[in-house]
């Protein structure tokens, strides 16, 4: 049984590498893939990196995409449209905090819908 995959999208490669490490300290059975920076690792985002990350994180349980700033969302939407994935969704939640919650919930077998729901009520006090 696979779990819902997580893709971390940021304008900075370092940001997503770091978040991936934080999450992977706590969660071991969830695909956490990253798409950070432009194709040449400058500040920005890359549709191609996002597509590659989705492909790696994909299973029939689906994939949730977390992004940092508005233009990353445009590239995330585009990646999904260009390749017509089923069960792949961009989540409107804080990148680090949202992805952490999502990864933990995925690790205990929650569904894509349940996880997305949980990320909508994140507060900073646990």
């Amino acid at each position, binding site marked *: 049984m696979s779990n819902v995959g997580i893709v971390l999208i940021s304008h900075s490669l370092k940001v997503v590498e770091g978040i991936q490490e934080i999450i992977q300290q706590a969660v071991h059975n969830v695909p956490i893939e990253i798409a950070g920076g432009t*194709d040449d690792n*400058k500040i*920005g985002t*890359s*549709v*191609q990196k996002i597509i590659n990350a989705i492909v790696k994180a994909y299973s029939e349980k689906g994939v949730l995409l977390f992004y940092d700033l*508005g*233009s990353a969302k*445009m590239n995330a939407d585009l990646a999904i449209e260009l390749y017509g994935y089923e069960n792949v969704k961009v989540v409107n939640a804080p990148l680090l905090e949202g992805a952490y919650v999502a990864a933990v919930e995925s690790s205990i077998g929650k569904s894509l819908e349940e996880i997305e729901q949980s990320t909508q009520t994140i507060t900073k006090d646990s």
Partner: protein
Amino acid sequence: MKLDVQQVLNWLEKTNEKIQMNKEYLTSLDRAIGDGDHGINMSRGFQEVIDKTSTTTYTSVSDLFKDVAMTLLSKVGGASGPLYGTAFLKMSMIVKNREPIDKKTLEDALESALEGILQRGKANLNDKTLVDVWTPVVDLLKDKEVIKGSELEEVSKNAMESTKERMAKKGRAAYLKERSIGHLDPGSVSSYYLFASLAEVLSEEE
């Protein structure tokens, strides 16, 4: 009017020239209310477009637009990548089997491109984005039976200048709220270059 592969290549080259010439200017506009990379993004993106399209043989504008779209999507890195990329992708779809492009086809293509931009960026008119230039351009095409280069230039220029007095509601400049007022929107300036170049191509033909 009619636009064939050769004229569209001409349009793209003129656009690229203006962008390369104004790279620093676009960047300085983006430095004032954004993250200071619009000149870099657009110059890289359009240079790649020219590199690609000048070394490929096209039998249709639709294929040409598609290569422009894919190049901008993959090479730009900022918001302008998915926005211009989506616009050219929509135009590629609309002009398919309607070549050479007549006035009605151009109108439909730009309208579809604008819809794509709106869907991609979720901006509204007057949010101080390139939508504020694309919207009056599409309106102009819909209003007029015949489209003149000089009118297109004038409408897009006025639209670009009008972004100065607006408050940004989308994109990086939106974080500045009132403090975005008094500055031109960088993406509207690059869109003006696109339409001013198209106006030149149309004028050459008149």
